């Protein structure tokens, strides 16, 4: 049900009264008498029948904090240097005075419920047609900052984001101690009320980009946001594409680097994956570690990943095209060896390739879902199905096993899981094209792919830049990674203002 309708329906009959116990009952009813809603009644001593009711959601609050606050608010402080609480409660006036400092006064029922859900403690006092909410948020559902599992590096920070948005933002603030790192908050999801924050460096980021991100986020009308993937689907430029146009990472250093380049990070409460926009195709082939290793190593590794793109996308289709259409292109000796292997195989090359590729995809999916304790079983079975046993059984040729293995290895090279999936999907299309038209089909497919890629935009930035449109100054951090002291400019297409980084001449060691 839509939130505003819910409000209107309940507004009329759900009104606060001056009776604390009645208010308590009202809230309990609205929350369906959920068991984790805890209420505590206290009667003020001085005046008869002044009841104070505390309400909070068990599990969302810090028990210790709640106890402290209840005691501190209610009981008279008789200590001098150190606060020592007496066993007497405060007067009503003192209580109001205290609350006016530390609590917010709420009059609407729905805001009261919002604050309860957000881990606040709510007080009702007899004689007041309002509630006081005190922040007692402190959840034991948060885990600490742990080592990241999805984008591992050999050298570089090992911490990763957590499910708590505040910790996540803090991890970025720890890295960028600049007053111009601004954040904006919004709440998305009528039911989940998910906290979403965007973070950017104010004097670097393109104003239009902030406006665009803001407006796209505001347009989201949905009941639930459970993960950044939900947001990603709403804000991406084009839905019908296999390629991701929003970057996500678990690594605070990757997100911080993106923010420093003038991109915008989108934090979503409840997930360790933070989004970054806009993103280019080439960013999916770069890892944060590229910047921590020497530039020549990084450049070579990037070239290796480019090669992996080609291998992962085309190895099976090139094998099919060569063996079915273009036998004259295979060196004679290799052809003889291939022909000898294919001699006993009953299937056409395409079927053979599909069998092996689908088996591999199944294995891979099973490997992800399996609990770690039985994980070793899958590798044993996998080695049989995708190995010598399949060859000995006469179902596939030995070369096909090698082809599938090369494809598999190269699809694991990419630092981004979602980019690897895009290539996995396209691979099957290319296999069918290769089996139908040979190299002609493969190249037609590649042509269409390039056309599609150049039509893509990520928040208005051409997906293939800095190659198409070509931008010579951005080449310093595309395939090549020039030494950091040579890298003067931020990516041009992403931020049009304040392009120049601080000039950082290499330290002169000779002096």
């Amino acid at each position: 049900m839509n939130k505003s309708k819910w409000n209107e329906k309940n507004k009329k009959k759900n009104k606060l009264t001056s009776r604390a116990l009645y208010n308590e009952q009202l809230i309990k009813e609205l929350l369906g008498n959920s068991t984790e809603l805890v209420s505590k009644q206290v009667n003020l001593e001085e005046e008869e029948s002044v009841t104070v009711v505390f309400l909070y959601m068990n599990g969302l609050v810090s028990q210790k904090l709640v106890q402290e606050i209840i005691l501190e608010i209610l009981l008279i402080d008789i200590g001098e240097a150190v606060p020592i609480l007496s066993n007497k409660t405060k007067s009503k006036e003192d209580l109001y005075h205290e609350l006016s400092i530390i609590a917010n006064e709420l009059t609407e029922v729905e805001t009261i419920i919002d604050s309860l859900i957000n881990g606040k403690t709510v007080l009702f006092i007899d004689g007041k047609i309002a509630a006081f909410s005190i922040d007692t948020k402190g959840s034991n559902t948060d885990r600490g900052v742990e080592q990241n599992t999805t984008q591992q590096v050999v050298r570089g920070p090992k911490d990763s984001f957590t499910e708590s948005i505040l910790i996540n933002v803090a991890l970025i603030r720890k890295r960028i101690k600049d007053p111009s790192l601004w954040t904006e908050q919004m709440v998305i999801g009528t039911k989940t009320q998910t906290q979403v924050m965007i973070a950017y460096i104010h004097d670097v980021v393109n104003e239009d980009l902030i406006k665009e991100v803001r407006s796209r986020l505001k347009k989201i009308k949905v009941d639930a946001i459970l993960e950044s993937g939900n947001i990603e689907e709403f804000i991406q430029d084009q839905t019908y594409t296999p390629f991701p146009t929003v970057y996500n990472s678990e690594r605070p250093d990757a997100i911080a680097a993106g923010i420093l380049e003038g991109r915008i990070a989108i934090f979503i409460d409840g997930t360790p994956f933070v989004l970054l926009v806009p993103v280019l195709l080439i960013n999916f082939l770069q890892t944060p570690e590229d910047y921590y290793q020497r530039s020549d190593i990084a450049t070579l590794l990037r070239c290796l990943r480019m090669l992996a793109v080609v291998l992962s996308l085309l190895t099976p289709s090139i094998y099919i095209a060569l063996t079915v259409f273009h036998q004259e292109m295979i060196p004679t000796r290799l052809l003889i060896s291939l022909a000898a292997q294919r001699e006993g195989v009953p299937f056409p090359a395409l079927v053979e390739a599909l069998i092996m590729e689908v088996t591999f995809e199944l294995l891979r999916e099973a490997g992800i879902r399996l609990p770690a304790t039985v994980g070793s079983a899958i590798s044993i079975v996998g080695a049989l199905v995708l190995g010598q046993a399949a060859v000995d059984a006469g179902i596939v040729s030995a070369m096909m096993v090698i082809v599938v293995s090369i494809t598999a290895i190269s699809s694991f090279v990419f630092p981004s899981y979602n980019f690897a999936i895009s290539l996995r999907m396209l691979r099957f299309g290319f296999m069918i094209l290769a089996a139908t038209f040979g190299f002609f089909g493969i190249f037609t497919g590649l042509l269409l792919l390039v056309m599609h890629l150049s039509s893509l935009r990520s928040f208005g930035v051409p997906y293939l830049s800095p190659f198409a449109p070509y931008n010579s100054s951005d080449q310093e951090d595309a395939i090549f990674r020039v030494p950091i002291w040579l890298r003067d400019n931020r990516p041009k297409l992403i931020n049009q203002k304040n392009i120049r980084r601080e000039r950082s001449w290499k330290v002169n060691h000779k002096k």
Partner: protein
Amino acid sequence: MGKYINMLYAICLCVWLSGCWSANELSSITIATALGIDKSEKGFTLTLQVLNPNEIAGKEGLSSRTAISNYTESGATFFEAVRKLTKVTPRKVFLSHLMLVAYGESVAEEGISSSLDFLIRDHELRTDFVMAIVKDNTAGELISVLTPLEKISASKIYDSIESAQDYWAPTKKVQVDELVNSLTAEGKEAVLTGIYIVGNSEEGQKLQSVEQTKPLANIYINGIGVFNGDQLVGWLNEEESKGFNYITNNVKNTVGWVSIGNGKVSVEVKKNDTKIIMNQKNDAKTFDVVLKTVVNIGEVETDFMIMDQSDVQKIEEKVAEKIERICQASITKAKEYESDIFGFGEVMRKTSPEEWGKVKDNWSKQFVFAEINVKAEVQIDKSGMITSPFYKKIKEKNSEE
């Protein structure tokens, strides 16, 4: 969206329409490696050598079958004969990996141009196979001979021609495009490599032949067949073939020897550069063949000191003399056949087209009377690991005893 879905439909329909046009699974083709062309009453008799891949690269224990099998078919035209082969081969014949096209001597004597058209025209053939003439035997017999070491005899012949040309220079690797070029060029005649069988060609077809250390039949590459037009007119022997290669600047590396004193010195030719220049004095036309050759000393069987400049010079002169003699022998033989295989006519055409216009119609007759001087310049580069031969010392020791 609807537009895209329609496009997708159209593309999908194309997939079925194509019917996997020109697709051939590896297991449905048979790889041909050699083609033998012989004469028959009707026209051509073709012998096709195809592979049995399992016998070459299979990992299971090899059976007693041969790695190659031959099919023979005759036809009135070349193409007809090729297509008729499908009657006897179990699968579609795949010609792209052809390595050798061999002509029987009798076909070559009659003329080879009628069979060349198909070899160039057909899209399936690559033009990197070698062409050769089988001396004395038929081409069918040649490609049926089993060879030790290399299971595919076509591949053995291909490699032998290549290495013989590169390290010994008694032959020339001729590919189809080069053959067609020299057949059609003005002022140049074609040549083809000679191949012959030594031993019993009948026995050489049996597996027992390669089951012993000395096969019952062996394939040798030697000599060059000289063409006049598209007809084989004669052969150059080994030395004359080498001379031919010297003149046409096709020597990469070879070995020769000269007599010095009472012994021999062998030299290895490391580099050779030949230029043919046409001189015109009044009406007389002369050709100068200028060779610049760099050699290394390979073997010394006499008391020769490399440190001695005069000795070095003596060898250089002797080697130059020998090269000149070889070249002249080759030229004499070619004149005998009235076939300008070296391309002197082409040199003339390039240097003085008017003169060429006068003689081109009966150049083969004119060529016989052309004056051709050969001038070789030899330079010794390296002498190997020994400077003074121990040959002399051993001799002295022997005489002491």
